């Protein structure tokens, strides 16, 4: 017998986006800003309320609906802080090096995977992500196009991910 096609409860539909919302909020507020979790919870609560009250009528995808709520809440947060501090909060580094303590083992695995890469890929990772040069600066130093910098960086990361499974 075919299962009835039930619509997920608003809470469940919204909770599926918790990781996406958290990532977006942390990127905007900075990884070590302690307020990020509260902001995410407020967004989730607001979204569930809007779905329950019928304010969300399905004119756009749930993703777009949540993106809009998230962006508005982030702007409000920054405005609020700006009023209190008289200037916008300092943008914090992202990824934040003190963000989460990763296992030593995992760090070693990644180091090993990087050492196995061809120098042309390793050099891009070093200049682009470790030395934090801009894409244009890396391109100039290596004598390649900025687009090629992105291609090499993305390909290198793909290779690392293949060797170091989570």
């Amino acid at each position, binding site marked *: 017998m075919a299962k009835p096609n039930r619509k997920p409860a608003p809470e469940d539909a919204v909770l599926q*986006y918790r*990781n*996406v919302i958290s*990532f*977006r909020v942390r990127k905007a507020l900075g990884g070590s800003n302690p307020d990020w979790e509260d902001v995410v919870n407020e967004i989730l609560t607001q979204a569930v309320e809007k779905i329950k009250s019928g304010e969300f009528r399905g004119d756009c*995808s749930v*993703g*777009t609906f*949540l*993106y809009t709520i*998230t*962006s508005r809440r982030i702007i409000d947060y920054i405005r609020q802080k700006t009023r209190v501090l008289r200037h916008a909060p300092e943008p914090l580094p*992202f*990824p934040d*090096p003190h*963000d*989460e303590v*990763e296992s030593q083992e*995992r*760090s*070693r695995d*990644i*180091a090993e*995977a*990087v*050492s196995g890469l061809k120098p042309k890929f*390793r050099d891009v*990772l*070093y200049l*682009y*992500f*470790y030395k*934090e040069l*801009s*894409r244009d600066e890396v391109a100039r130093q290596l004598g390649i196009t900025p*687009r090629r910098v*992105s291609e090499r*960086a*993305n390909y290198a*990361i793909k290779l*690392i*991910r293949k060797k170091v499974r*989570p």
Partner: protein
Amino acid sequence: MSKCPYEDFIDRYLKNELNADEQAEFEKHYFDCESCFARTMETYEVVKMLKDGRAFDASLGYELDTPRPASPWRRFLALFSFLKRRR
């Protein structure tokens, strides 16, 4: 499977190198595209680990940043608290 055109935004997004319009466009996109969000997270995880410098061994010819030496005032405070502890 064909590659999503937004995948090319990932590295610049994490480096804050997209302009405001591109950034908003990409963020709106990854709220709906599971694959791009997963790739962004994967890249983020690796980049975070690359920042500790462990991957760029001196034997491979890379120069690592050395922590900045403490200012004279900080050194004085450290010495002061050390002497205070010994009393």
